[in-house]
């Protein structure tokens, strides 16, 4: 059974012209980095959570004022309840329950459901926005390096200008002007976050063209096509993978920050929005601020660990 799976993988990678030996080599090098592996494990867990989680959790939008401000399981808080009949405050002990393992917010919505739903949002934004930024950056970088001349000049000046804008301020301005819908947010992040990639890809492409192994390949009679596909592209792909992995956390944080200041999509429960609400109820329901933050933190940490590990694995000079 496993053998059949391996056969299938082999045939698919052959069709895609993937260099399995090389991929395996890099994977072995990455595996030795424990932090990178734990990062990858967390990411896989998060993806699974985002995809199948919503089927198992309660409805995150269902507000239930009877059950507001319940702490997570294992904690007990005191709430003052005002009773109209008796005209006094009684303090009641409210323990966490398994029905709401992560507690509820001030409107009685289940935290677990909101967190899971937020995972979906963050991952979607992370992947799509990063995808846009990387593709845009790669195209510009490669064009610039390949065409050279005034095209290179113009593109690089433009990149310089865009790079000078502080990323977050520009994002705020764009969303302020165009409106806070998730689609716009993804688009805006993608259209503003490509500058670093463009620079890196361009400089790598330029240096690759003059590297000795390319010159050697040409001296041995390799055609331009062959040089591009068998020599240049594999070198750039590893760079792209590292850049992508290390860009995702920034993107996720950007979306969370936008939601935090109120420029997020209100129809969606992003971790940032939850955190913003939690900020105002630190006295009564501190978990509403803590939980989404922990998720954000762990997610960013995981991608950083993985990206760093990948970067070391791909770098022939690092001693793994």
């Amino acid at each position: 059974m496993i053998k059949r799976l391996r056969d299938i993988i082999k045939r698919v990678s052959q069709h895609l012209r993937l260099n399995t030996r090389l991929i395996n080599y890099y994977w072995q090098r990455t595996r030795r980095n424990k932090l990178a592996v734990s990062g990858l494990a967390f990411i896989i867990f998060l993806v699974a959570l985002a995809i199948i989680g919503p089927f198992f959790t309660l409805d995150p939008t269902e507000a239930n004022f009877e059950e507001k401000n319940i702490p997570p399981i294992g904690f007990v808080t005191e709430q003052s309840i005002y009773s109209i009949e008796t005209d006094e405050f009684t303090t009641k002990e409210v323990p966490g329950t398994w029905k709401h393992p992560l507690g509820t917010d001030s409107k009685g919505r289940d935290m677990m459901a909101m967190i899971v739903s937020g995972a979906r949002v963050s991952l979607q934004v992370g992947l799509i926005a990063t995808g846009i930024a990387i593709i845009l950056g790669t195209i510009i970088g490669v064009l610039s390096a390949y065409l050279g001349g005034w095209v290179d000049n113009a593109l690089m000046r433009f990149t310089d200008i865009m790079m000078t804008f502080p990323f977050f301020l520009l994002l705020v301005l764009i969303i302020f002007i165009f409106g806070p819908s998730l689609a716009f947010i993804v688009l805006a992040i993608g259209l503003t976050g490509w500058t670093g990639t463009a620079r890196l890809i361009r400089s790598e492409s330029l240096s690759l063209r003059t590297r000795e192994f390319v010159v050697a390949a040409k001296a041995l009679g390799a055609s331009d096509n062959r040089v591009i596909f068998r020599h240049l592209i594999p070198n750039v792909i590893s760079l792209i993978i590292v850049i992508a992995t290390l860009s995702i956390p920034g993107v996720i944080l950007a979306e969370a920050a936008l939601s935090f200041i109120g420029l997020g999509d209100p129809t969606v429960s992003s971790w940032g929005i939850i955190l913003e609400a939690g900020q105002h109820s630190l006295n009564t329901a501190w978990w509403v601020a803590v939980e989404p933050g922990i998720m954000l933190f762990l997610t960013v940490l995981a991608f950083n660990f993985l990206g760093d590990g990948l970067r070391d694995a791909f770098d022939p000079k690092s001693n793994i």
Partner: protein
Amino acid sequence: MGKSWLRNYTIKRLIYAVIIAWGILTITFVLVRVGPSSPADKYLANLAARGQDVAQVRAAIEARYGLDKPIYEQYIDYMGNLFQGNWGWSFSTSMPVIKLIKTHWIYSFQLILLSSLFAALLGILIGIYSAVKQYTKTDYAFTFFSFVGISIPNFWLGVMLILIFSVKLGLFKTYYDTTLPLFSLDNLKALVLPVITLGTGMLAGYVRYTRSAMLDNLRKAFVTTARAKGLPERTVIGKHVFRNALLPLITIIMFDLGSIVFGGAYLTEIIFGIPGLGQISFNAIFANDYPVVVAVTIIGTFMVLLVNLLTDITYTYLDPRIRYD
């Protein structure tokens, strides 16, 4: 030979900076005009909701801002106005935008300055120590913590600090008071948590970059030469290795300023209620007060431009390899 070349280089960079500045203003203009609604629409919608006479106000705004003129005329007006210091009027506070900026920028500056000092001093020291003690437990610990520092969302850190220190422990409860002098004790106390919030991410970055720059140089041959001369180890590290590490370090740190610091400062001001430019931009967003938002964006960008320019020139001046070529 060195001096005049440096002057020419500076002039070249200045001209280039002006071009970039032009590009920034143009792009901002394009963004604003390309938006789905006229810049005044949102504000007018607010007014309408409050029952005021929309048509009259709209006419007044359009006349004042020349929104009815063709686009290229608006552009020229825009540039002209900016240069004359006329940055428009804030819709919501009825103050000239430039006055708003003048009164509030100092608080942002103070926050960023203190955070940067905190991050730089601590970060560089830890980075050097970490590099020198590579492969020890201390190094691994510091490296791990720098990962953590980079990964913590800075707005969450701010909220957590408030939760732990202000709410649970009851410390640092003072709020920033603009009636007191900038560096009064109360204000400084109020700045402790914000500086830690903004500074932690920067600190982690400094540690990583310093460590990496030091490690790169620790392997080099001139270090063995320095030791062979009989120099004590602290001179070898502090004078020989560090000075080589310092150069690339300066550039990385300065260029990073734009992407990380200003966004972080924006959020930190909002969380802690510091009346800087981020705060007034935030308020402006909810009042649909577009001139303010645009102005803060432009100022922030120009600051980055300035810092980049200064760093570029400083680096060129400091690196003997570029100067004497």
